[in-house]
């Protein structure tokens, strides 16, 4: 990796510019401009709508630090992100391994399709179908009671586990895809070489396969952790009253309370925290990869 980058930079950026331009133009228009507007908003006392008076202030940022509610919610969102990421590793990595190293041909294609199916379904539809499965008298409840000889009561709806289930379902394909790509690139002869040197399957997994697929694990974790920390749809619909997280509070500011400046400020604090976490984790992760 490092020496590839070195080669790239030696050749210079210039020949690559025409290739980069469309992407940067798009990013500027679609992300940078609205985002700078948000930065601007986050320093205002009120929205300049309907001729209301406004001035610059740091109060929105101060609000985060003056009320412990926000940092408590941020912490529980970070914990949610961590838990969902871990479940995605636990579920996604073995699936990716089987896809990349065990299945061949048609069965691989079929399973692959099943894995990325959630990608193709509408997020809202996905969440509401979970709601139907998880609620009391829902599909899971009815099915289990039909099979089991005794009566049990399954009502996972509006609970923390329901939020986790919904989020893991939405994000696990990222983990499967990134891990699949790195696992597939591992030559089978490396695994055989390990075995021939006296390593058991488990030792080969820990010493060869996992280290070599670390880049995929890290990429998948980053792709999952960041959006999950700011997520609001799954917590709101599947979590109900227990589903108040940092992301839902931000959403409230924009759609319910119409306090855009506070919503914007909270978003940027989240962005800063996530960036700090990634920056702190980078050296550790780089060593692992």
């Amino acid at each position, binding site marked *: 990796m490092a020496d590839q980058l070195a080669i790239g930079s030696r050749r210079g950026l210039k020949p690559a510019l025409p290739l980069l331009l469309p992407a940067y133009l798009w990013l500027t228009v679609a992300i940078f401009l609205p985002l700078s507007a948000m930065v601007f908003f986050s320093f205002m006392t009120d929205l300049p709508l309907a001729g209301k008076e406004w001035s610059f202030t740091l109060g929105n940022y101060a609000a985060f630090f003056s009320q412990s509610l926000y940092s408590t919610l941020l912490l529980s969102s970070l914990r949610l992100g961590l838990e969902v990421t871990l479940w995605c590793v636990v579920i996604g990595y073995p699936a990716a391994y089987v896809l990349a190293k065990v299945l061949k041909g048609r069965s691989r294609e079929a399973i692959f399709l099943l894995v990325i199916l959630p990608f193709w379904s509408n997020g809202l539809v996905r969440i509401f179908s979970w709601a139907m499965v998880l609620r009391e008298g829902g599909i899971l409840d009815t099915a289990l009671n039909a099979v089991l000889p005794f009566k049990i009561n399954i009502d996972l709806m509006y609970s923390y586990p329901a939020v986790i289930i919904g989020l893991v379902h939405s994000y696990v394909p990222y983990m499967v895809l990134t891990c699949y790509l790195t696992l597939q690139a591992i030559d089978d*002869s490396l695994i*055989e*070489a390990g*075995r*021939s*040197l*006296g390593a058991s399957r488990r*030792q080969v997994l820990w*010493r*060869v396969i996992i280290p070599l697929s670390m880049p995929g694990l890290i990429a998948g974790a980053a792709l999952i952790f960041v959006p999950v920390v700011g997520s609001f749809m799954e917590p709101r619909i599947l979590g109900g009253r227990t589903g108040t997280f940092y992301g839902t509070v931000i959403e409230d500011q924009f759609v319910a309370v119409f306090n855009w400046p506070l919503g914007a400020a909270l978003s940027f604090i989240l962005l800063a925290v996530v960036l700090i976490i990634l920056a702190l984790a980078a050296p550790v992760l780089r060593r692992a990869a």
Partner: protein
Amino acid sequence: MAGVQVANVSRSFGAHRALDDVSIDFADGGFYALLGPSGSGKTTLLRQIAGFDFPDAGSIAIGGESVERVPVEKRRIGMVFQNYALFPNMSVADNVAFGLSVRGEPKATIAMEVQRALDLVQLGKLGGRRPHQLSGGQRQRVALARAIVTKPRVLLLDEPLGALDKALRVDMQIELKRIQREIGITTIFVTHDQEEALTMSDRIGILRDGRLVQEGSPEEIYDRPQSEFAATFLGDANIFRGDATGSGIKLPDGTTIAASTGASVPAGAKASCAVRPERIRISPGAAKPDQATANTLTGQISKRIFAGNNSTYFVDRDGQTLKVIVQNTGAERLAEGQPVVLNWSPDSTVLIAAELGEPRGQISGMLSRKITCSRGW
């Protein structure tokens, strides 16, 4: 250290028989080459011995013990893969240390053994490098060091020199042979390259379409091939086909060829004779001398290839092209188009019983060899 006994091993992939009733006894401490065209089952046989794959029938024993139920990691084998299969995430030293460290050897022992193995392959100073910072030959030596540091009972090498250029290949052949002698390990070496097989091994097994065609010392196989395939795959050979006479064969045009080595074929049966190009004497002349000895033919030189220490003449004779190699002794060279007399002794002629299913056309030895080789690449 231990020998390997492969007995009646068969392995099919779907309808394709990759190994068909193969039996070979690899002697303890020997250097054994498995030679054969591409797809002949060499890698498949090696994988059965290593335990990556399992035979449908037959048995394999290492050191006298059946390994049917022994998984790869318990077979105590060392393997060098065609693409070296070095772990890219580890340094050279860690690659070599891998086998010892999974066994849980103490750190100090590992460091010492790794250094010794790296010194043996003359890479003592490169332990800190990553595999991608090494040349092909160096990688190959790391792979070898990694395979022998665990003191395996058997060393399996799958075309380890395939990716190297000619000069490096010869260096590595010498080095590999030196190391093998030094530690005296039973070695099974897969190669495409007949010269490599001849120069390096104590014994050679030739595989074709999953069957063991012939097995023996390099001299035995070169001097007394038992099939046209063995004759033309290991070295060059001129092949004559005709009917057995008891002491040789009679060609369709009535010429007789006397052979005093090889199989005994009952008179009247189909048979072939193989003659090595360097055993044929060539002299200018349009007609056979009056007191023609046995095995004298006339022909015309169609092509001459000068290769410094020797010259190869292609001599056309009755629709067949024969190949003759003459050492450069300073004697007069013959020109293309010149009529010549060819002569060789019955001792240099090997009688071969016709194989069932063998095409009976007049294909010269060189030609069929070329075909097998091009399949090989």
